[in-house]
């Protein structure tokens, strides 16, 4: 393993320490609960927005804590949902009279921890709700499984509920907005290489030199199928077809298009994917009016990408357009 790591067990705390040092005025880091929060949260005038999940998806979610987005991120260890206690402590620290909204990507471990944490917080009189995000179309929803996974699309839910909370919306209204965005958001990803969790020290799975994993999860979970490597355009076409036909998005729709890098893919390649996706959507009569090309929700150092579509209307467009101020920035 060649990574910038000291003690793999300190991977997350050291990262959070670095984040806090880089943002001394805007962030507060609470090491006891592995927690990063806005220095000026909670506020009596605002629903507090909290996102929890395993680590290893940076910038999601610790690096999008800030004005107009998250009040706090409650990360677990790499790829592991936070233990219930962290959730409980986070809810307590972020308690606002307007309520706390816990955003949870749809994974068994995360849902359990947040359900339990919520119950404990409620038993102390804190107003808490959970909103589950499940945008990944890779694996067909079925009664036998726990439902679709939550992946990069959660950025849009966060942005929208962050904007709604910032303008003072009540908890119910914030939840309505978040659900609405989740309902029109779909994602699928592909891996060119496996990621290497620091504590494991070797690739999480084996992919041949000419193989890709179509529909991969952001924790390296297998997806739809393992396929032969092909060119960028063909990969986009397959991802896009799966995403477009799922909602479905149709001719006349205006959409936000996100090309999200999974950690090891340079942004030059992401724009090559974006180009094709934009062109193919145009062919289907779908207009891209908001563009997102960057790393949003990664899988450590995995080479790969995901495509996300959000169907826009005036309300969602305005929420995505609202200002924000977060540690992940360029200047």
């Amino acid at each position, binding site marked *: 393993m060649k990574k910038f790591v000291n003690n793999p067990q300190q991977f997350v705390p050291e990262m959070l320490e670095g984040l806090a040092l880089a943002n001394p005025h805007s962030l507060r880091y609470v090491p006891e609960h592995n927690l990063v929060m806005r220095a000026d949260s909670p506020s009596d005038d605002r629903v507090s927005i909290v996102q929890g999940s395993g680590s290893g998806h940076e910038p999601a979610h610790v690096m999008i804590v800030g004005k107009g987005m998250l009040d706090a991120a409650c990360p677990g260890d790499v790829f592991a949902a936070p233990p219930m206690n962290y959730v409980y402590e986070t809810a307590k620290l972020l308690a606002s009279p307007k309520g706390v909204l816990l955003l949870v990507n749809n994974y068994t471990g995360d849902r359990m921890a947040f359900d339990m944490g919520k119950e404990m917080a409620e038993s102390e009189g804190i107003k808490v709700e959970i909103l589950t995000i499940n945008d990944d179309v890779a694996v067909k929803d079925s009664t036998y499984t*726990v439902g679709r996974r939550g992946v990069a699309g959660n950025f849009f839910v966060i942005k929208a509920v962050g904007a709604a909370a910032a303008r003072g919306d009540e908890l119910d209204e914030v939840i309505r907005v978040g659900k609405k965005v989740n309902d029109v958001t779909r994602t699928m990803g592909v891996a060119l290489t496996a990621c290497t969790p620091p504590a494991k020290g070797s690739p999480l799975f084996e992919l041949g030199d000419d193989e890709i994993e179509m529909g991969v999860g952001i924790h390296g979970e297998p997806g739809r199928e393992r396929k032969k490597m092909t060119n960028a355009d063909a990969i986009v076409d397959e991802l896009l077809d799966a995403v477009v036909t799922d909602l479905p998005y149709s001719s006349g729709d205006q959409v936000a298009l996100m090309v999200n890098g999974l950690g090891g893919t340079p942004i030059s390649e992401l724009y090559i994917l974006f180009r094709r996706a934009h062109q193919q959507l145009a062919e289907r009569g779908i207009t891209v009016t908001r563009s997102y090309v960057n790393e949003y929700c990664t899988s450590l150092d995995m080479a790969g990408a995901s495509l996300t579509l959000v169907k826009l209307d005036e309300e969602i467009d305005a929420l995505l357009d609202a200002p924000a101020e977060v540690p992940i920035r360029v200047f």
Partner: protein
Amino acid sequence: MSSTGQQQVDLVVRTIAQAAVDNEKYFGDLDAVVGDGDFGYSLARGFENVLAGWDDVDRTDIGTFLKKIGMVITARIGGTSGPIWGTAFMRAGMTAGATDTLTGEQVVAMLRAAVEGIKARGQAEVGDKTLLDVLVPVTDRLEAEIAAGSDAAQALAAMAATAQEAAEATADMVARRGRASYTGERSRGSVDAGAMGVAVILGRIDEAWQREGAS
């Protein structure tokens, strides 16, 4: 079947904890096949905490002791395993209650309570390819051994064997719960990490008991 006291409970729980720490890499590799590879890490970090606070755990009675262990696990272990394993210990402790000794029948009741807790927490059933697919047959086997008049050592040896078989049998199942379930048919062919984890740990308890359990 003779009764079991705090000393034996200590032995069993410490063996579980030590086995989790010792098998960090193996359990992680099992979880990497169709999961995300963190099962070993999560268990190891959590049970390290159990061992670190070992001497200070409240041992007023066996029930209290197990509930406290469950709380450390829930507080410290992330992922799916924290809530699942924490719930199991807490339910077992609640069922044991304020007692200094346990009969075989009581242990069966505790295991049944743990199983029910896991089912409720994980909304899982036998056959979903989880640790339940080892825990349930193991509990059945204990019940049968008691009925047949086996002593604790005999019962444990039998349970360890059942666990190993049951864990291996999960290879033929399709995962319907947890992260592995996303892969559907592709989850077939490899054993469930949690199920094999329980089997390995039971093997270690069996060994430890034959060595020290009677003392």
